[in-house]
């Protein structure tokens, strides 16, 4: 289940042709915009309106709270570990899958997609089953005093799991559509495998990578369900930003909760902006 993208599409057709009568266009546009306003714009506006309800000073104060800062730090670390790992995997997997044909390709792609559709709760649960005191490795870990669950490693693992397919699923269709003519030509002309990859393939998929990384990053920083199961909720140590939002919300500290939530909303907006730019560039690259 890939996050559907428009990487494969050509430019929108030029000036259009027959269309609906103006009143119909107006009505349809209005209905679509009202729908989007109700479901997308209003909630987004609500985050910021609640965050700044008590003024900018309170807002800043809420963000400077030590536990919140610790949560921000943990979230940054989590993304800094999960995204590069999945990036390496994404490039490797898309090379193997897009540039070669082999039996069982569809099954492999389905397996890569699996973390997309597995409920986050299940993603957390599996790590409890493996690393929990009563889990497979529980006794071993306890004997060697290695902490995974309810500590930073558990949070990293859960995050890597839920963000696993993002980059691979972005690159596979892109590389498939580009074919392998250019690479083959380079090889015939005597370039080595790595040279071919860095000189030919990488520039071609550059924007696809950026696009995948930014989506992967957004999810890594925003994951709630899976991380909530494995975190242990120790303040200042194992709370990520989304968990901190929940905690503040539960402490009647609504303004602070929404202030921290607005950080994540900002992140979402930046993600959307970068995504739009990347998408535009991918389309440019796709032009023959």
């Amino acid at each position, binding site marked *: 289940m890939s996050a559907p993208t428009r990487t494969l599409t050509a430019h929108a057709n030029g000036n259009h042709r027959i269309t609906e009568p103006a009143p119909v266009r107006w009505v349809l546009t209005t209905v679509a915009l009202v729908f989007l306003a109700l479901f997308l714009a209003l909630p987004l506006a609500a985050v910021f309106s609640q965050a700044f309800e008590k003024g900018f000073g309170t807002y800043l104060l809420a963000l400077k709270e030590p536990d919140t800062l610790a949560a921000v730090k943990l979230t940054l670390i989590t993304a800094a570990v999960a995204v590069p790992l999945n990036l390496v995997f994404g490039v490797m997997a898309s090379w193997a899958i897009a540039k070669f044909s082999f039996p069982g390709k569809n099954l492999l792609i389905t397996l890569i997609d699996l973390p997309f559709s597995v409920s986050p709760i299940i993603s957390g649960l599996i790590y*409890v089953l493996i*690393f*929990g*005191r*009563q*889990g497979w490795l*529980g006794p071993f*870990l*306890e004997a060697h*005093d290695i*902490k995974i*669950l*309810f500590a930073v490693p558990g949070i990293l693992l859960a995050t890597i799991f839920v963000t696993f397919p993002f980059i691979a699923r972005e690159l596979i269709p892109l590389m498939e559509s580009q074919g392998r003519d250019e690479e083959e030509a380079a090889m015939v002309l005597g370039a080595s495998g790595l040279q071919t990859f860095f000189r030919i393939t990488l520039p071609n998929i550059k924007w696809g990578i950026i696009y995948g990384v930014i989506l992967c990053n957004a999810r890594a920083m925003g994951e709630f369900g899976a991380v909530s199961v494995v975190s*242990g*909720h*120790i*303040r*200042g*140590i194992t709370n990520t930003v989304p968990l901190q939002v929940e*905690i503040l*919300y*539960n*402490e*009647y500290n*609504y303004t602070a909760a929404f202030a921290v939530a607005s950080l994540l909303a900002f992140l979402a907006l930046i993600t959307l902006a970068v995504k739009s730019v990347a998408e535009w560039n991918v389309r440019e690259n796709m032009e023959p």
Partner: protein
Amino acid sequence: MKKIITSFTTLALAVSTTVAAFAADVTLLNVSYDPTRELYTDVNKSFATYWKGKTGDKVTIKQSHGGSGKQARAVIDGLEADVVTLALAYDIDAIAEKGLIKPGWQKELPKNSSPYTSTIVFLVRKGNPKKIKNWDDLIKPGVSVITPNPKTSGGARWNYLAAWAFAKHQPGGNDATAKEFVSKLFKNVPVLDSGARGSTNTFVQRGLGDVLLAWENEAFLAINELGPDKFEIVTPSESILAEPPVTVIDKVADKRGTRKVAEEYLKFLYTDEGQKLAAKHYYRPINTKIPTKLAKVKLYTIDQAFGGWQKAQKTHFSDGGIFDQITGAAKK
């Protein structure tokens, strides 16, 4: 050469042991339930000062809060808590069953290891528009009651049992009438959050429901945090004596070498200072000399009314138990 290495090793060992002996920088993890956040923030500060004065060591206490059952499960699965301070003994029993706490833990500290008690009261909207005075007002048609899910929330189990006991104490009351009473009560519940805090938020912030069944301290906190002009507290004619117990997790404390400070930390809750903090956060201190502003209520214990937690849990909250029967979740 060998000699040099040996002496280096000895030196390194000596240095490390000295460091350990001098700069004792201890961290404890207190895994607690939902409504104690503010209480333990204060207690931790006071205890750190007290401990520094007594031993010269610096102690930092980390907190983790959530639904009582959820927290106990995390400890069972390996959350390294030095002490737990949960909503009810049943959840600590569950940890003890797994061998993390020695049997008989509840006798380690005075008063069933509960340094403070609480009870269940009603939080209603200002002016009490639905005229809710006592438990039997909760089952009237048109009254919307907010309580968390007894399956996951400790507070909700106290709520449920308090209602049950009230019905049983009525003239002609027995198990059948109590079941009917509680069944009617839960028909009036539109939302079941998984924890006490979730319910308070639903009632207070989302404006849902006419009455919130809440921990007494939670009700006062809601009023203080969110304005006395919006809510008021109704104390029913009788309620249950909730004893939230505390204990050291033996296995963790022994492994981490924190037993002494962990025990002192819990004992600190029984000192005048600890008791005053409990009173300040609207818990009922067990030391009767500590003044409290809380109203006198007729309270009975879980042992008196239900024969202890194990029994209450099995009858009411296990799968297929009475709670499942009244919500229709059990097979008929």
